[in-house]
């Protein structure tokens, strides 16, 4: 575009800018054509539903359609916040998320550190290969396996208990066991896969550091404490902050699959409640309000987590 450079008259600059842009748009027409399906996708399946959250402020009647349904303001929200169920959902979500952070979050770090200490690469590879497998199974498969092991009707564990003269335990129905099962299933499915990111961080540690530490007489534990852990510190912090940002996401499919009429009081969380009131009972507007509440709190948490990351001197995620 050399001829554009020749233009010097100020009055012509604005016009020439526009002309240049049109020329670029025309030249890149294929690129815009390629973008088109993607843009249509994002608008249709992401932005139209975002606009659809306005349902939360309406009383949606399917036969009237979105536009003709009447506005009701904050009615659905005040109904939701006034319902004792709200506190139950908040409590259940909070407990499950806390269990997840306390009992699951540290495990991939520990296993990664232990894998890193293995002397033979072959062992490491072999164990890695095995422990990644459950990550690729669907929650339906994982929960199905849990059912086959723990059901009272011929399940392995209960048969074992019975054979030893004990009394069968209603693992899958008893509300007391619900949270344990949710957490244990997550540990079983995701611990192995969770190590990957830490192992990658560990692979980047300069081996000279270890040599120098050994020269200074540091034993393995001290090497771990002073070299290995600091090397993955920022990965741990970032992942913990990300996890806090997604605090309300408690693994919808898994919980939904584990729920039954007996354990609802401990198992129902925001997402499952949206499903049962919205899809099963057809209260579209009310359940949209519940979902919107969760999305907004989630958004705030992500931004807060990002600020926190920056406070820790990390780059942040946004």
């Amino acid at each position: 575009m050399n001829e554009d450079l020749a233009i010097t008259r100020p009055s012509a600059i604005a016009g020439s800018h526009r002309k240049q842009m049109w020329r670029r748009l025309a030249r890149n027409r294929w690129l815009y054509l390629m973008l088109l399906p993607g843009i249509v996708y994002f608008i249709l399946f992401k932005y139209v539903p975002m606009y659809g959250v306005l349902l939360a402020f309406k009383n949606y009647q399917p036969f009237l359609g979105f536009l003709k349904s009447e506005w009701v303001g904050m009615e659905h929200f005040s109904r939701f916040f006034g319902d004792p169920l709200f506190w139950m959902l908040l409590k259940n979500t909070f407990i499950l998320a806390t269990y997840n952070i306390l009992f699951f979050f540290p495990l991939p770090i520990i296993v990664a550190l232990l894998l890193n200490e293995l002397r033979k690469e072959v062992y490491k590879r072999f164990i890695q290969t095995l422990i990644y497998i459950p990550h690729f199974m669907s929650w339906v498969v994982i929960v199905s396996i849990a059912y086959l092991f723990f059901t009272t009707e011929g399940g392995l564990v209960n048969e074992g208990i019975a054979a030893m003269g004990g009394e069968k335990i209603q693992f899958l129905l008893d509300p007391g066991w619900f949270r344990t099962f949710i957490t244990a299933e997550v540990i079983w499915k995701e611990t192995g896969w969770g190590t990957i990111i830490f192992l990658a961080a560990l692979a980047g540690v300069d081996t000279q550091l270890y040599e120098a530490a050994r020269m200074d007489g540091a034993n393995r534990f001290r090497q771990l404490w002073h070299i290995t852990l600091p090397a993955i510190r920022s990965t741990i912090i970032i992942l913990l902050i990300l996890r806090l940002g997604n605090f309300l996401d408690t693994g919808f499919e898994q919980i939904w699959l584990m729920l039954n009429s007996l354990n609802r009081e401990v198992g129902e969380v925001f997402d499952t409640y949206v499903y049962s009131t919205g899809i099963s009972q057809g209260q579209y507007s009310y359940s949209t309000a519940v979902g919107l509440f969760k999305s907004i709190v989630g958004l705030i948490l992500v931004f807060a987590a990002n600020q926190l990351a920056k406070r820790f001197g990390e780059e942040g995620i946004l």
Partner: protein
Amino acid sequence: MVRDRTFGSRLFDVLNITFLGLFALITIVPFIYIMAGSFATQKELLEKGFILFPTEFSLEAYNFIFSTSTLMRSMGVTIFITVAGTLINIVLTCLMAYPLARKDLDFRKPIQLMVIFTMLFSGGMIPTFIVVKELGMIDSYWSLLLPGAISAFNLIIIRSFFQQLPEGLEESAKIDGASDPGILMRIVIPLSMPAIATFSLFYAVGHWNTFFSAVLYINDAAKWPIQVLLRQIVILSQGGSLGDTTAFESDFVPPEQSVKMAVIVISTMPILVVYPFLQKHFAKGVLLGSVKG
């Protein structure tokens, strides 16, 4: 790498390998038990309880499953949505990622922002459900293929991957008169094959495990993917969904343990078969994401 040979250090090695071995065993034994159980007779399962190798090898469970049309139909549905879905994912993702990787494109930033925002906020289950419903996709396979056609996360990573390709290649192709689609097809995609293969795998596993979108959008049991059927058979124990209900009505018996196990085996088999060969790609994909995400 560590060369100290003190007693404590060796003891740690022994304990470490034992612990990790045990962990790997806990991970894998349930699968082996399910697989062994699927080949066992109901009698042996009941008598022995835990078997890792059936003494009486039986194909009863599989014979039963393959004699019914339901399971094979669901497998067919899942295979179809896996192949078609992955194809749609990759084509749409690459088509959108390439223009966004071109720094000279006008409106690139706002479009990118539009994509990234969807990772932070979503309309949620119900508004999406209504959109899919209004589009007339209920009980259509499109409802399983289109609403998740592009993952914003994967899109951004593939875009970054495209950006890392040497610019000189594109420019020389342009001088040779290649068009933008030509450059994408003949230069960018072939050079990005490792990344594209990795993301195809992730997309494909996701489609194979399609479950909840089918619960939401597919009411017609004849169109259920295998995961939904698996839930019916094992978790809800509604054995009636297996096989022709009319033929079953009079003397219906809930499926035996071995049948349930066989259904789990069949529905996970494809992943287990390809997994060992593709394991490296899977791991690479995560790192691709963590570095540039």
